[in-house]
């Protein structure tokens, strides 16, 4: 692939996406008493997480800027495209 291609993850409108560990994942499921199904979804080939090499079942943590709270954390479950 061409290395000169625009990297969306560097754009200011794209918040930070991080894969969380299994321990964090289970903790998250426990605090909200949910399973992967109730979580908001994201495709594994979404441009913002493509570089993370995720697989279905992973959970991404997204740290966004928020007009009300300054910074806010959001989670999305990865599904296959």
């Amino acid at each position, binding site marked *: 692939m061409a290395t000169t291609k625009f990297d969306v993850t560097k754009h200011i409108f794209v918040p930070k996406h991080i894969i969380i560990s299994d321990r964090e994942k289970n903790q998250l499921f426990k*605090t*909200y008493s*949910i399973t992967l*199904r*109730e*979580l*908001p979804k994201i495709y594994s080939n979404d441009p913002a997480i493509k570089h993370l090499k995720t697989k279905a079942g992973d959970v991404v943590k997204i740290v966004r800027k*928020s007009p*009300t*709270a300054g910074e*806010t*954390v*959001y*989670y999305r479950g990865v*599904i296959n495209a």
Partner: protein
Amino acid sequence: MTEPTVHKQVKSIVFGVLSPKLIKKMASAKVVTPELYDKEGYPVDGGLMDIRLGVIDPGLTCKTCGSKLKECPGHFGYIELARPIIHYNFITLALALLKSTCRECGRVLIPKNKIDGYAKVLDDAEKEGGISARRAKIKSIITALKTANKCPWCKSRQQKFTLEKPTTVYENEKRLTPIEIRSRLEKVPDEDCTLFGINPVAFRPEWTVLTILPIPPVTMRPSITLESGERSEDDLTHKLGDIVRINQRLFENINAGAPEIIIEDLWDLLQYHVTTFFDNAVAQLPPARHRSGQPLKTIAARIKSKEGRIRHNLAGKRTNFSARTVISPDPMLDLDEIGVPTEVAMKLTFPEKVTEWNMEYLKKFVERGPKKYPGSNYLVRPDGKKKKITDETKEQVIEEIQPGYCVERHLMDGDIAIFNRQPSLHRMSMMCHRVRVLPNKTFRLNPAVCAPYNADFDGDEMNLHIPQTEEARAEAEVLMQVKTQLISPRYGLSIIGCIQDAISGCYLLTNELKLPRDKAVELLLAARETDFSTLPSKDVITGKEIFSVLLPKDFNFEGRSKGYTGNADEDKKNDTVVHIKNGKLISGIMDKANLGEGSGLMLRNLVKLYGEHRTIEILGKIFRLGIETLLRLGFSCGLHDTDLPQKSKDEINKMLSDAYKDVDALINSFNEGKLEAFPGRSVEETLELKILERLNDARNKTGLLVARDINKETATMIMANSGARGNPLNLAQMAGCVGQQALRGKRIEGGYFNRTLSYFKKGDLSPGSRGFIRNSFKGGLSPSEFFFGAMTGRDSLMDTALRTPKSGYLYRRLANAMQDVRVEYDKSVRDATGNLIQFNYGEDNLDVSKTEGGKINVQRIINSVTD
């Protein structure tokens, strides 16, 4: 109360399609003739109005169930179709099945060894994404099977299917008759059906092609008798008549051995009638019409869309004990009162229970009857039977009355009512008021509650509902009282505040007004304040001191008036720093920034510290105080309010002339080609931008000049300064210069060739020819200026007319999409299926209605604890 016994419990529901067998089984009559009634007007046996299908005439009994009109629910019938007919709503499904099964052996076009794999894929999809994911997967499998051209089971070649809308199927240019389609679908084995998401027990594929048509009971298509004694049949009956007639003709032709072309034509015609019987708005078909030309309302039209059963009858129900009329203002009513016309109060009633203790009291209502206010309209007996009270029956009713009965008495002062104005966009659109019965024919409301209803008095109408039980009253009072709705959940400030005259009045009062003591007391009394203990014992009392009487004794507040600049000296001079200490207004003018709806924290703090009940009382008094002040002072605006001294008029004129000259110079340099373009712009665009900038600048300067030189003591200026109505721009347009008229952000462009009006020269770019209005409204507009003004006026009128329905539909979609979303106890936002939408409500977990304008003042909380 004991639990009601459960006789049967619903474990599961199976959805399917009626089979021909079932249709026959549930039918109680076979329809064979299109005739409806015989010569005596009696329903024909085997006709569409057969009395075995139910009765709609009084006096007749149903042959099936033996009950009379209103008791018989109606019964289905059936007709045998001479040839099979495709059910329009299943054509896509039937086609998908044809495409993905073998034309010879009927098996799915998937090899034997792969079938289990596909089944597993579907099960997995359902496990992960629910039933909708399974359906999506089935769809993708079907599309994939379209391309298969050889059956993996019997090795026969497959053909291409095309659909000619709405109901004709071609296989390689050869037309497939419904008979063939049905026989193909019959071949599909049960185990293959499951793969398509079809339960073969409740839904065999071949049932999508009808051989028998169920006839709906007469009770769902009643005929009406016109005044002339003529009968007028329901649209569905008309349609069914067509079907039966064509079906009979088809039978006769087939039996007589008519040529194939004639039979096919009749067959197509029957298909058309059956399709339009289900849905008369199929895109490719001309809708079936009455003789008058209006389209028939068939089954789909009864259910679908706004006038259909769901949105009209199920989602939108009508109510009794409600009233609607024009609204008008009455500032002398309390904020949570509503003026109800006597006429309305005598129609709307409240059922009051008769007890030993109120029997004599209620008997008086009965005695007055329905025509004398306050009387009563009905007596409800303990068994629920209602008896109308009339002048003739009232003596008899009084005799009968005893505890346990119920009197529906007229509406009276203090009764609870729910008041509403459409569109009901937020919860404040329906609030609970106390009734005040008044003369005349309009609903009266305090102008301060116009804001939450978004009402004005240019002809608006509003609705009134009377809760009919004590429980409903209590609930309405607790949840919907005006005072409980003070703080808007949208931005956390009071949405009810002073408006218009109340603001100008308080502004004048708190701005250097002095009154003798007797006048001050009179004023406060008029505002219904009775506690004068905080009124200073002086002979001359200032307006601020009068205002302070209304405030709680320990209220402390610091805020800003409308004219606050941040410059300490200027603010002191203009008295724009609001300071309230121990319930005394020490400095600051009370204007829109403090008293208005949705602005300032004074009202918000009052609610927080003294509760909504006290606040609404104070607010009502402030409102009346403002109005009474204005009443005493006199307050009129006139044409001379916009007068300017000759000197400033000359100055404005010169300023505009200068601007015109500059614009001329710009146009000249453009014509000579000397104008330099802005980066990324053409020279023409640059010229436009520069002209627009220069003219706007000139207009703004005239605005400042008007603000500087105009008489500040006039009523017009007071209204603008207090924020009651109007702004400096309106004033500048009246006194100085109206300014540039713009369409789509540009100066007005040529409607004729290269010019705006034929009055101008071609290619004229001067301000006057492109919609700049140099004159003021008072000075008068020239004809071309007036026309430009009309252009922008029409444009904005069009804009609002087009935007209102669009935003209404957008709101509807939004509300429907979010109707089951709620905030859980852990502050996460979830929908009805438990899906997480947001992890923290609003990302900051704040309930806006408990904040001050969306924020929480932490410093003040700390201060209040540490002090």
